[in-house]
């Protein structure tokens, strides 16, 4: 039963969906504050390479090495996001241009590739990896075994993050403030809320999430470093935020949907089922998503109809005369 196609697809869909979920949650936080960051792909690659480097270099037990790797990946993501934050919040540059530049700068032909080569990370498996936390006996339970109990700790932490982000936005004072900053910075400013501070904080936290998302790939899903290993997951994550109407709980559903799609092609192949050029369209998905994202974020009408934060992508200038 646990070998049936559906269960296998869902189980690996949850695994493949986890980096998407982290990246989407981070992007959601930034976008809720009004900052669109198209640099997710670049920040994920930054986190992926630095997380992988950490486990290869830190000589400690698995727990410590992996924790350190996640922290380093988060810091790398936040550091890259700070470039974007400075450009678009302080210098009020175009958010679309700056985000694209960040992806190119940190991406597959940029900083992450350079670091991967310079630190000699390719061609060796990860020294420590995230493995399933529950005992084998539980993983063998029918259906829920592989899907729910066959996952690594990053998956369970991501569920916690969905709950926390959701509660943060809907029930807390800073959550209310950040929504106000994303919807109407002028209103927030008059009420004494610092638009700049909130935008910086959420863009940086968003970057940290993207960094962790990258490390999830290199430390749990395919524990190795390959140039451009994220394969466009960052773009899918940005699209996910849009399709989830900027709501964390829907990000979870969407992430697992896209994760399952990714799992589908290899599984079908392994079972000798041929449904036309399956590999082709799953591989093309990130590119399609990139186009979808760029069309939607540059069309004001599409954004407002989908319910985007009203000030998304717009720099705030306190009304000077």
């Amino acid at each position: 039963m646990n070998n049936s196609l559906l269960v296998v697809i869902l189980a690996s869909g949850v695994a493949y969906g986890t980096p998407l979920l982290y990246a989407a949650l981070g992007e959601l936080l930034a976008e809720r504050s009004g900052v669109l960051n198209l640099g997710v792909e670049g920040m994920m690659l930054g986190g992926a390479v630095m997380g992988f480097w950490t486990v290869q270099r830190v000589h400690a037990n698995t727990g410590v090495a992996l924790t350190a790797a996640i922290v380093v990946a988060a810091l790398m993501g936040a550091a890259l996001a700070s470039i974007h934050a400075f450009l678009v919040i302080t210098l009020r540059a175009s958010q679309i241009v700056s985000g694209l530049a960040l992806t190119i700068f940190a991406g597959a032909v940029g900083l992450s590739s350079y670091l991967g080569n310079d630190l000699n990370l390719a061609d060796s498996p990860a020294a420590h990896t995230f493995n399933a936390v529950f005992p084998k006996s539980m993983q063998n339970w029918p259906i829920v075994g592989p899907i729910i109990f066959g996952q690594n700790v990053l998956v369970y932490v991501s569920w916690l993050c969905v709950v926390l982000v959701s509660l943060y936005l809907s029930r807390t004072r800073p959550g209310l403030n950040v929504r106000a900053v994303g919807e109407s910075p002028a209103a927030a400013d008059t009420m004494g809320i610092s638009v700049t501070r909130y935008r910086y904080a959420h863009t940086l936290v968003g970057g940290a999430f993207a960094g962790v998302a990258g490390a999830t790939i290199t430390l749990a899903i395919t524990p190795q470093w390959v140039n451009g290993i994220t394969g466009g997951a960052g773009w899918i994550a940005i699209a996910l935020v849009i399709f989830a109407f900027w709501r964390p709980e829907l990000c979870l559903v969407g992430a697992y949907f896209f994760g399952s799609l990714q799992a589908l092609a290899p599984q079908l192949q392994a079972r000798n089922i041929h449904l036309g050029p399956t590999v082709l369209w799953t591989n093309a998905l990130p590119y399609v998503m990139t186009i979808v994202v760029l069309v939607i974020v540059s069309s004001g009408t599409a954004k407002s109809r989908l319910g985007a934060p009203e000030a998304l992508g717009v720099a705030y200038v306190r009304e000077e005369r």
Partner: protein
Amino acid sequence: MATDAAVPAVSMRGVTKRFPGVVANDKVDFEAAPGEVHALLGENGAGKSTLSNILTGLYQPDEGRIELYGEPVAFASPREAIDAGVGMVHQHFRLVSRFTVAENLVLGDRRGAGRYFHIDPSAIATQVRELGARYSLPVDPRARIWQLSVGEQQRVEILKALYQEARILILDEPTAVLTPDEADTLFVTVRQMAEEGRTVIFISHKLHEVMAVSDRVTVLRAGKALATVRTADATPESLTELMVGREIETATRQGRAQPEGVPVLEVEDLWADGDRGTVAVRGVTLTVHAGEIAAIAGVAGNGQRELAEAIAGLRPSTKGMVRVNGRPVHTGDAQAAFEAGIGYVPEDRLGTGLSPTLPIAMNLSLKSYRHESVGPFLRLHLMRHKAEDEIRIFEIKCAGPDQETDELSGGNLQKVVIAREFSAHPSVLIAASPTRGLDVAAVEQVHSYLMQAAEEGAAVLLISEDLDEILALNDRVLVMYEGTLTAVEDRESVSEIGLRMAGGTPG
């Protein structure tokens, strides 16, 4: 009633604020007593908003001292001003439109329900209802702002200030968005707040409002506080003179057109969508005759802008017909509209009306250049020459035809737009809020141009939120409410126009 209490609620001494190239406030002295309604009167650009932005901590003054109830203050941020009891109702509301009324009130609140990490806006629902009942500002705390009318949104802004326990309340042009009836209700609330000992600073450039609601008036002109007088001792004439610095001759409309004139602009069952995909114009039928000024009144946002744009070819219609001189005009095609003889003075003069970084001469030729060029080449010499004429005729104050357009003041920008539209001798002229933000002198000039156009036989469609303007110029008044147009029977009846602006019908 206001008295010169020993300690004024607000005292500003020698307050100066400079912006690059202008002194917005020049050694302004201002004083308001507790329990007083104090009007700040002045034309646009006189420095009223700057002064209030200093008082609310948005700007820091370059010089001068501010005291509240005898205590010197220096606000570094809006937060500090709020904490000191200064509340402001901005002309453009500062509300989060997707939030509920309660959420907007709790936002940034440090005293009430908003001071905890965990927030429950519904906890203040009762408090909002009580405040609303006490000040006749009823509003449902669970309603979302976008669901509310503009008048209701203003109530939320005032409630916000009251919820923050503001002792000094600044209202910036509060009646600009209200129907006459709503304005009267607001005045009652204002008086009540003053009777409770709060200080209300009422910013306006409308004399009759100032006369009706205030105890004292401070007149600002060109950044200077000229005088503070008791309203009881002032007359509208004396205040105008202070405000403008000279007497103003009001142009009055001579020889109203006969409604039997030739129909020039005919609009039939026109429908158009707004920017957000909602239906903004719902089946408008309208005829404007040669030599007639038809005025469309209404509170902003009832579809006036979309109607004007649909007629002027800037917005496709979803249904219906526009005809000029009997010939149908393809909507959604600005050039076709222009060729058909429609001139358009848009509401947003710098954004839609002009290309800000082009020289004045180019902007003046923006519509006519197609007929004046030689093949692909512009006849720059001719353009300059024509521009020089127009600058002279329309009294555009500028350095010359080569000056960049966005360096001009609001009134002169509007004259550039009008000059361009007039020089094409349009048979239909649509003017959308043509005098918004202009000073009194410029307003008079724009009005005389519109009357001149009508006299020369154009069909003029004036769209305005300013009732005084509508009453001064119209041959016929129509009111736009939620996308539909109704005719006003008595074109001089403020009460009928006001009633229709609120969606009612007389009788």
